[in-house]
């Protein structure tokens, strides 16, 4: 076990728990991070020779804590003002750390650390950057790459975020059940944001941003291990796994989007799908549905269909109605309309989306779906108008390329004057 990459993965695994515990001791994020960093350096020196300890996390917390106390003592010799008020509970530095690390402390520590990153004063982009830096331990350079911004810009973003939360009061007392549930909700939303940052990337950006999806899944699994009986956390984890399973099949060699029904299903990751299905199965036993579970259940129906034509669209439509009732949104209605078009035909779906035109007048997918429904009904001129509008609203070259394909097909049909085929649905 002298290979450095194994030690690296042990350190990465231990990081959230270790930093979270050190934060509880020092009540200062920078100090906790420095202490962990110090402990890692010692581990890299010590572990290759002696082998990793039985409990690497406890080792890192203990060593990190001692190193930080040492540093403070050295500094206090030089400075007349001791920092002792921060160190009030460190007298017992020599006691076996394992005794203090009971499970519930761990849980609240990590939840607190995750929750700090979700501070409501922080815009979403700062929340994500902070979580990746502090909890996942990604370097500023790695995060900057994933966000496609310069390293110094990312450094600034993280520094600003840290300054904001340093001034905010961080709750160190153990949370009550209501607060715990609120924190869980905020943390789940942040993890979903991290995932979407990676998932919404396309084309050439995708390989650089994909690690964000892996990181989000790691955080979701961590949260689930801490709270094994929360159906929404099961749902969130299942949703991320099932979506991530399709990564390899989502784009063609040129970076153009491949729609779900055209994807090579053998390229889906069976291992992730199995885990996602097991989790949503488990969540369903609770009979306590939530938005993540419903979305995961929809993803599960797609994953279970061996061929696109095996998809249970009727059930998907029902699930979208349930989601609509939980969090009404025109985008969800639009998705339900797609399911309706598969189950009951394009006419019914078109009638459903007409009233959404006002609210979604700047939404690429609205015009994509509309164009596709019109195409299926043979209303080619109207379809062309919708597709043109969609192209003008495309968020990425991959989206534009996909719509271009429809338009090209439409112009070909016009010149050969052939009857419209069934048309690919959007």
């Amino acid at each position: 076990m002298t290979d450095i990459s194994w030690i690296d993965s042990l350190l990465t695994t231990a990081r959230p728990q270790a930093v979270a515990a050190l934060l509880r001791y020092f009540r200062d994020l920078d100090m906790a991070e420095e202490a962990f960093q110090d402990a890692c350096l010692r581990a890299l020196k010590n572990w290759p020779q002696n082998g990793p300890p039985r409990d690497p996390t406890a080792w890192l917390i203990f060593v990190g804590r001692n190193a930080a106390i040492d540093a403070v003592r050295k500094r206090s010799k030089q400075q007349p003002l001791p920092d002792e008020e921060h160190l009030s509970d460190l007298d017992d530095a020599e006691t076996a750390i394992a005794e203090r690390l009971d499970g519930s402390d761990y849980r609240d520590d990590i939840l607190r650390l995750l929750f700090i990153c979700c501070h409501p004063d922080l815009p979403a982009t700062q929340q994500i950057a902070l979580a990746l830096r502090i909890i996942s331990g990604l370097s500023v350079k790695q995060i900057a790459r994933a966000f496609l911004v310069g390293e110094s810009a990312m450094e600034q973003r993280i520094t600003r975020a840290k300054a904001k939360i340093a001034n905010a009061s961080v709750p160190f007392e153990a949370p009550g059940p209501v607060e715990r549930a609120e924190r869980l909700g905020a943390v789940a939303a942040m993890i979903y944001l991290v995932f979407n940052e990676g998932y919404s990337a396309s084309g050439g950006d995708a390989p650089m941003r994909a690690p964000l999806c892996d990181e989000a899944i790691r955080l979701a699994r961590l949260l689930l291990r801490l709270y094994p009986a929360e159906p929404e956390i099961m749902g969130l984890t299942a949703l991320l796994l099932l979506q991530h399973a399709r990564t390899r099949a989502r784009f063609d060699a040129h970076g153009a989007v491949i729609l779900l029904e055209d994807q090579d299903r053998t390229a889906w990751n069976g291992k992730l799908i199995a885990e996602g299905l097991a989790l949503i199965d488990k969540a369903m036993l609770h009979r306590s549905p939530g938005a993540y579970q419903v979305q995961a259940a929809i993803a599960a129906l797609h994953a279970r269909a061996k061929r696109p034509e095996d998809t249970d669209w009727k059930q998907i439509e029902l699930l979208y109605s349930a989601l609509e009732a939980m969090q009404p949104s025109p985008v969800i209605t639009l998705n339900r309309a797609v399911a309706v078009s598969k189950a009951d035909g394009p006419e019914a779906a078109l009638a459903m989306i007409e009233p959404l035109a006002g609210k979604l007048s700047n939404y690429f997918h609205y015009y994509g779906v509309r164009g596709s429904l019109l195409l299926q009904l043979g209303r080619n001129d109207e379809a062309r108008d919708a597709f043109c509008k969609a192209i003008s609203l495309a968020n990425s070259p991959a989206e534009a390329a996909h719509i271009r394909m429809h338009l090209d097909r439409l112009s070909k049909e016009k010149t050969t004057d052939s009857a419209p085929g069934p048309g690919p649905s959007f």
Partner: protein
Amino acid sequence: MLYAVLCYAQEDAVTAWSKEQDEAVMGKLAAVQQRYAAAGKLGPVARLLPTTAATTVRKLRGESVILDGPFAETKEQLLGFYMVECNDLEEAVAFAREISDVNPAGGSYEIRPVGVLNPVAPTI
């Protein structure tokens, strides 16, 4: 004598392995397995999905209850195991309940979805 060898390890470390690390370990394990399989000695080998996917059926005051997560008691010992093909977790739970109901020892039944199964059978 047929032996069951049960594997215990720190799960969060194993799930943090990179794809390359995981494949390297699986490759080494497969090499050992192949030798025993070639000698007709190896039975089924399974890799279980993470404990986050586990459910436990447990008898409490004569009632069997379903708990999320893996079996976490240290007072009971592993005495046996089943492999059963089910349509979903509900069916697996029903199976575990049936066993639990007829077993006066009570105890716990941890249900773990199987991720990978290599069904080589020993020639006995």
